[in-house]
């Protein structure tokens, strides 16, 4: 009896301690500002969350070479597929990993939530600025001096993947303008297939198309945000696709499903306006079509234009609360600028490096077997140089994407239009900013 009583007391006390420490950990760990970025003494262990296929092997290489800075990598679903939600929860709970993969479009969201460490004072970061493609550095520094809220990893310059064999066999010209693309869409439809699938949930792809057309969705003048999902350019792009949807010239299957893979795998969809990393998606989703694909520059709005959009591309950020920003930064710099790492990332996941030196990697000059040995990265290099640096992302992109996607879903089901979806997304975004007291101009 005495023993059980003591056991019960111990159990109770333990539970109470757990409860108390649990609470305090959740509370006040975020108020330390940018800590000095100094190396720690002794061995350091870092945690890193990413969703790049094959990232474990790259981290292994680092771990072997750096016994004092050991990185434990954790993989998850892609950012908007759940990893960002996890990051936000972990930040709220004060137990975020040291490093995380964040796409450029989500960086403002994390910065607004005070989730990112400014790495500008860390050794080597500001020196690295010139090593990265200008617009990617603009995204991680928010175009501010003395700021680097992440290290750019890869970018997603957009081009057009197309079924070279089918276009040729049917005598259809490869479209170079969106007008020609619509004409080709009719010709492709006449064969029973679709020229492409309009994605109802990849709003970042749609943003890339708007980006190419010269539009921008957000602005930030330092005192206020502006939200502009419904400017002339965005509406022009929305109307263009709405027309193709209305005429049943594009399919509207939910993307990233087996059904969608199947459409590409069986030749029911002929093109995909996607980013460099999309090469990996096609190869894994449509394995039966190996050797039949090719890459061309995106169709242009005016013949002779040379503009490209960007879809995706990630950075490596250090989260608020990391005790070892110095070591974390060293790892992030190595991961995103060493030729060893960039070569591995390209081979495993077709990542197109944000580091300028990475663009000259031998692996990026080689022909890619899946694309009939076309050196496809030449096309992406051209596209990369044509991406405007002016596109700004909003501070609640998860919400903006959700709301616009809800509208796009309705539009492809015949309720409303893509332009209406943008209008709804516009007001929903403004509401979301206001709800968080983020200053916004109406």
């Amino acid at each position, binding site marked *: 009896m005495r023993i059980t009583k003591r056991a019960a007391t111990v159990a109770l006390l333990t*539970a109470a301690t757990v409860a108390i420490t649990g609470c305090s950990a959740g509370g006040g760990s975020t108020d330390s500002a940018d800590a000095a970025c100094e190396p720690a003494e002794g061995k350091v262990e870092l945690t890193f969350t990413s969703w790049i296929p094959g990232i474990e092997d790259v981290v292994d290489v680092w771990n072997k070479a750096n016994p004092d800075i050991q990185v434990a990598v954790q993989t998850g679903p892609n950012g908007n597929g759940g990893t960002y939600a996890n990051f936000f929860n972990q930040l709220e709970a004060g137990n975020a990993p040291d490093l995380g993969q964040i796409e450029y479009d989500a960086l403002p969201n994390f910065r607004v939530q005070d989730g990112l460490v400014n790495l500008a004072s860390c050794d080597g970061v500001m020196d690295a600025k010139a090593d990265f493609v200008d617009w990617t550095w603009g995204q991680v520094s928010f175009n501010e001096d003395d700021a680097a809220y992440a290290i750019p990893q890869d970018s997603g310059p957009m081009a057009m993947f197309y079924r070279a064999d089918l276009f040729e066999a049917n005598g259809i010209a490869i479209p170079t303008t969106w007008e020609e693309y619509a004409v080709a869409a009719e010709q492709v439809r006449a064969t029973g297939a679709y020229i492409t699938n309009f994605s109802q*949930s990849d709003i970042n792809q749609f943003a890339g198309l708007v980006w190419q057309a010269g539009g921008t969705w957000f602005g930030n003048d330092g005192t206020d945000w502006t939200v502009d999902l419904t400017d002339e350019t965005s509406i022009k792009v929305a109307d263009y696709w709405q027309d193709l949807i209305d005429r049943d010239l594009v399919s509207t299957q*939910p993307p990233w499903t*087996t*059904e969608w893979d*199947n459409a590409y795998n069986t030749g029911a969809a002929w093109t995909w306006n996607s980013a460099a990393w999309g090469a990996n998606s096609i190869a894994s989703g449509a394995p039966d079509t190996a050797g039949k694909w090719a890459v061309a520059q995106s169709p242009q709005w005016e013949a002779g234009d040379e503009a490209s959009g960007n879809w995706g591309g990630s950075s490596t950020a250090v989260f608020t609360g990391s005790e070892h920003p110095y070591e974390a930064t060293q790892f992030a710099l190595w991961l995103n600028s060493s030729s060893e790492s960039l070569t591995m990332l390209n081979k495993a996941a077709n990542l197109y490096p944000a580091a300028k030196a990475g663009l000259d990697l031998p692996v990026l000059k080689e022909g890619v077997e899946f694309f009939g040995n076309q050196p496809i990265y030449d096309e992406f290099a051209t596209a990369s140089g044509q991406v405007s640096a002016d596109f700004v992302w909003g501070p609640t992109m998860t919400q903006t994407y959700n709301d616009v*996607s809800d509208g796009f879903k309705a539009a492809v*089901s015949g309720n409303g239009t893509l332009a209406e979806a943008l209008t709804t997304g516009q007001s929903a975004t403004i509401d979301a900013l206001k*709800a968080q007291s983020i200053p916004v101009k109406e």
Partner: protein
Amino acid sequence: MSAPALPAADARSAGPRSPAPRPRKIKVAHPRAIAIFIVPFAILFTLFYLVPIGYAIYQSLLVVERDGTFGKATEVFGGLTQYILVFQNGPFWESITRVLAFGVVQVPVMLGLALLFALLLDSPLLRGKRFFRLAFFVPYAVPGVIAAIMWGFLYSPNLSPFTALTSNVSFLSADLVLWAIANVVTWVYVGYNMLIIYSALLAIPTEIYEAARLDGAGQLRIAWSIKIPLIMPAIVLTGIFSIIGTLQLLAEPQVFRSFSSAVTSTFTPNLMVYSTSSIPNVNLAAAFSVVLALATFVLSFSFLKFTQRKEGK
């Protein structure tokens, strides 16, 4: 967040009958023993129910303030600001209406089937009871997400083994997707509810059946006039569980969202909570959760009161 109504409703449905006279007999003879038995439960209950609920309520009373476009957020007491937003939020109430419509149809169908299967298993006419008992229960062992993915393939217009049907009837369209989901939920939970009802049937003393047979009642008559009234408490219990489950639909619509154009980020109340918290706007998400939990509680409690009054008559 909204799970709290579950044990409360559970305790209530079981509460009024059994323990009434007992505590007085024991008095407080073994306070330490009682404490030891209660403490493990109390600790877990506090940690995993009371504290999170309290935290959600606390969060829902805060609003965020900040200066500048990237200003640091400070949370200040905002009273019922978030609740006003909840009540002004059209999509939230639409999602509640949607799951209510879902529940009104799906719950009776599911429980009807569960009752039918339980009665069949209990009837002396059926052979291979063990096999059927297991066969009906197996879907419950399939995790909800897997079940939803599997059914997604079955509904798929091009990949389904039943394309002759699915290419003509679009189960994933706005008109049908709610019922397509209802079918998945029914498939998963019929066996589970059947087992609860079946175990209540097993507890009925066999003398009652003998008496009924002596009075000339057939199997149908026994089922209708004896079995069903006696197992009413079990049916009510499954009813309450199902109402709670309906309001908390998350996994199935979340999975369907990726392959159906008709499932939006605000399709069910819990999906709405999920998308709000990933903005992240935890304060508003907390307010949604609290309102949803209250709605669940009110609904389960009124259902209980309603059925008890009927029993009373």
